């Protein structure tokens, strides 16, 4: 497995790397799961406004242990807090905010991302699985920039960056950038392009791992 030799960064390092790309003043939705980690690495002296689709802008960190308010939760149904400057709203307004293109960035996990920016992250299509989509499809098409946060390879070593998604789609042509443990990729009109390499990773190695061209052909 060629990937085993390549330098990778940890999930926490990756969260910090994504956080570094989020400018002050951005309106940001962090998806359920690993993307939630990004919040821990936003610079404390920058004002970045977090949106949670269940009806809050200006979401703050988790409350101290023992100070949980069950009416105040995030989209993952975990207890959160609200910052000074927060606002509550109902679900139609909240998803209008997304669908209307008002969020600057959302960060989502992925099963697969295609070279044209298609995202698959809600269902593996496994028979017998109970389908559940939540806000994934709305987030995918809603934010100005959709960042994906994922390992480059699955546990069995298959690339999550693919020519075409095999898993059921969440959104078509919606991903702008993919942050992985080995490199950051931009989704361009001409497929994936490497934006940044982590550790000793080379573009040749990445091309071997994902079996897609990462360079212009001219």
């Amino acid at each position: 497995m060629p990937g085993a030799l390549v330098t990778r960064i940890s999930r926490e390092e990756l969260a910090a790397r994504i956080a570094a790309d989020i400018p002050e003043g951005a309106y940001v939705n962090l998806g359920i799961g690993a993307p939630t980690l990004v919040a821990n690495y936003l610079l404390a002296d920058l004002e970045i406004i977090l949106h949670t689709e269940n009806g809050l802008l200006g979401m703050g960190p988790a409350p101290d242990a023992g100070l949980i308010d069950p009416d105040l939760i995030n989209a993952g149904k975990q207890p959160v807090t609200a910052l000074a400057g927060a606002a509550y709203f109902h679900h139609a307004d909240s998803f209008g905010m997304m669908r209307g293109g008002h969020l600057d960035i959302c960060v989502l996990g992925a099963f697969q991302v295609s070279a044209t920016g298609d995202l698959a992250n809600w269902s593996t299509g496994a028979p017998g699985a109970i389908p559940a989509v939540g806000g994934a499809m709305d987030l995918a098409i809603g934010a100005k920039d959709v960042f994906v946060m994922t390992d480059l390879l699955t546990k069995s070593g298959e690339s999550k960056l693919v020519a075409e998604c095999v898993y059921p789609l969440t959104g078509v042509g919606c991903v702008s950038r993919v942050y992985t443990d080995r490199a950051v990729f931009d989704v361009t009109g001409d497929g994936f392009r490497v934006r940044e390499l982590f550790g000793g990773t080379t573009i040749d190695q990445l091309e071997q791992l994902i079996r897609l061209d990462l360079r212009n052909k001219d």
Partner: protein
Amino acid sequence: MIDKTLPSTAAAVAGIEDGSTVMIGGFGRAGQPVELIDALIEQGAGDLTIVSNNAGNGDTGLAALLAKGRVRRMICSFPRQHDSWVFDGLYRAGEIELEIVPQGNLAERIRAAGAGIGAFFSPTGVGTELAGGKEERTIDGRRYVLEYPIRADIALISAYRGDRWGNLVYRETARNFGPIMAAAASTTVVQVDEVVELGALDPEAVVTPGIFVNRVVPVGSRPWVQGGAFVGGVDIEGRSCQVRS
């Protein structure tokens, strides 16, 4: 005098018929009208279609209604949760129908019902299997699918405070689906922590005007909110927590 308040949750859910479509507010446990659902279980209506974001948590509230076999069909965005074992069992046994709707389309379809919109073109879900069979159209270079309103016979929702005209305010993210479901049902039934005097709610801050509300029943403060103040909550495992100083 208009007085939409009722003395009991039993009175509030009276008359719900077998085969009804019932919207149930809440996102997870926040805003879930547990006392009204308990009353609905007691009331006995069955063969229900339930519209709710999730499909119940643990063994209480919506999960308890499901466990009684009263629900024929669920329309929701996210039935599968860490504590949705009741729904999971019914679904795997083929004992319940499921329509999965992306959360924003669910919200907008409910909103459309209340606002008299016949159908709308949504960009959400385009090109996915959840748009399968739906009319698609490209407008100004963007692809959309046509989505239809979701109406209900009854909405059961939870609010924080209400008055006898049915004006409502909510609390934090427990607002979620309440305002749009209130407008989308023929009969809207609301449980509130507290009924306040007419005029006590700031007209600038009323979230659901009484025109959308038919019945209001006070169920007392939740354990974590008393007299309008947060006095400590429970975490997702149900352990009780301290008051914030």
